[in-house]
């Protein structure tokens, strides 16, 4: 795609809103809502199937921002992140993302994402996959802990997961119908510099994002910042479910910073909102966050939720002597 064409495609005002129509290969959008619900149930069932007890991963409640927290070595986390929204001049949609995150080392976490979306009055489609790796750069704990993030993604332009915002990503990306956008597959390399600190129970994280389409397109940039804290810093002496030590609350802010050709805030979208995590003892972790668009290029509200379950010490299953 030539640069001017790309630029006009990315800029919100330059693209005509196409009324969504029912695609030939469509399935009802409730179909995927049902599948997403089924996936949640599957993850909840894992606690019955997984022989090891699940972990209380002390992860911050962020949906877009990454912190220094890596998966513990040998653990496999299965998560379903969902996003639903009803953007202006576009059909409501639901975008589920299945995550498989494995702690390869204490300093290296690798993760695969499988993504899809269902748009009301349109279709249900698979939109692609991502493979990411996070590396803790420095041993030990510091005031600021840098983590390097490298990702390869192969997703269609119909992807609506909004796992990050870069370049001129805007509400107009959500207004194309699936038949039109699914054919355009974007293969991109993404790097992030994750800076994160844990201070007196608080976590502060800042991400600087750069993304490059493998085709001849300019670098795109974005940012994400967040802070969170458990509701209490001291554990109770008895196991409990609805006690404060199992909740973490925080807030995050993220958005695009345009491209290498026009770095800045012009024609970019930004979101902010609170987020909360609920860690069920020896069970899954539930997360929820309403995120609000901060300008005209952003969708009004993104409703995000997450169900994750950590299967402990998967690698022990393959060691002599059994898993447990």
């Amino acid at each position: 795609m030539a640069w001017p064409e790309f630029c006009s495609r990315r800029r919100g005002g330059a693209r005509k809103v196409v009324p969504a129509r029912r695609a030939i290969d469509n399935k009802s959008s409730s179909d995927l809502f049902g599948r997403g619900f089924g996936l949640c149930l599957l993850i909840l069932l894992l606690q019955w199937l997984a022989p090891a007890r699940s972990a209380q991963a002390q992860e911050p409640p962020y949906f877009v921002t990454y912190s220094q927290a890596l998966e513990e070595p040998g653990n496999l986390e299965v998560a379903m992140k969902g996003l639903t929204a009803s953007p202006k001049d576009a059909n409501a949609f639901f975008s589920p993302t299945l995550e498989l995150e494995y702690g390869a080392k204490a300093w290296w976490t690798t993760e695969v994402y499988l993504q899809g979306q269902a748009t009301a009055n349109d279709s249900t489609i698979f939109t692609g996959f991502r493979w990411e790796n996070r590396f803790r750069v420095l041993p030990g704990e510091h005031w600021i802990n840098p983590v390097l993030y490298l990702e390869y993604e192969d997703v269609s332009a119909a992807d609506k997961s909004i796992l990050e915002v870069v370049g001129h990503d805007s509400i107009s990306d959500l207004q194309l119908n699936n038949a039109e956008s699914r054919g355009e597959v974007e293969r991109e390399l993404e790097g992030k510099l994750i800076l994160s600190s844990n201070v007196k129970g608080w976590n502060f994280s800042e991400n600087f994002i750069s993304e490059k389409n493998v085709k001849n397109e300019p670098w795109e940039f974005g940012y994400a910042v967040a802070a969170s804290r458990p509701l209490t810093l001291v554990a109770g002496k008895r196991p409990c479910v609805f006690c404060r030590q199992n909740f973490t609350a925080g807030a995050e802010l993220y958005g695009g910073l345009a491209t290498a050709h026009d770095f800045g805030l012009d024609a970019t979208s930004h979101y902010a909102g609170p987020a909360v995590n609920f860690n069920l003892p020896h069970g899954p972790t539930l997360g929820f966050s309403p995120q609000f668009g901060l300008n005209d290029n952003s969708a009004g509200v993104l409703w995000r939720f997450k169900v994750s379950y950590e299967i402990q010490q998967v690698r022990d299953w393959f060691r002599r002597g059994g898993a447990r």
Partner: protein
Amino acid sequence: MKSRWIAAGCLVLSCALVFAADGGWLRKVPDADRKRVNPYAGSADAAAAGRVLFDENCAKCHGEDALGRHGRPSLRSERVIHATDGELAWLLRNGSTWKGMPSWSSLPEPERWQIITYLRSLQRESMSSTH
């Protein structure tokens, strides 16, 4: 000739690993951290809370009895018994990432002290049962 160099390299690496696996992290602990005092030392409530935290966060690698599993170290070993509370707090905060021990700085500091209090109660149990 080439195979000799490879053998020598393997020998040096093996020696390095042997020496690295002997609790080398203890030498990295700054004096100020080494002398830190556990604010919950001896508290039964803190030990009970530490047990809950230990079950959720530590038992998967170190075993529910803290004796270690699949090559991961026992927390009732002489080395851990003789380490100061401050040294254990330093290890929980910083981890030993190249040896597989992650940093637990995401746990609030009071909870890390509660875990150490629980470990001490386990060690006391072990010592009283042997005497």
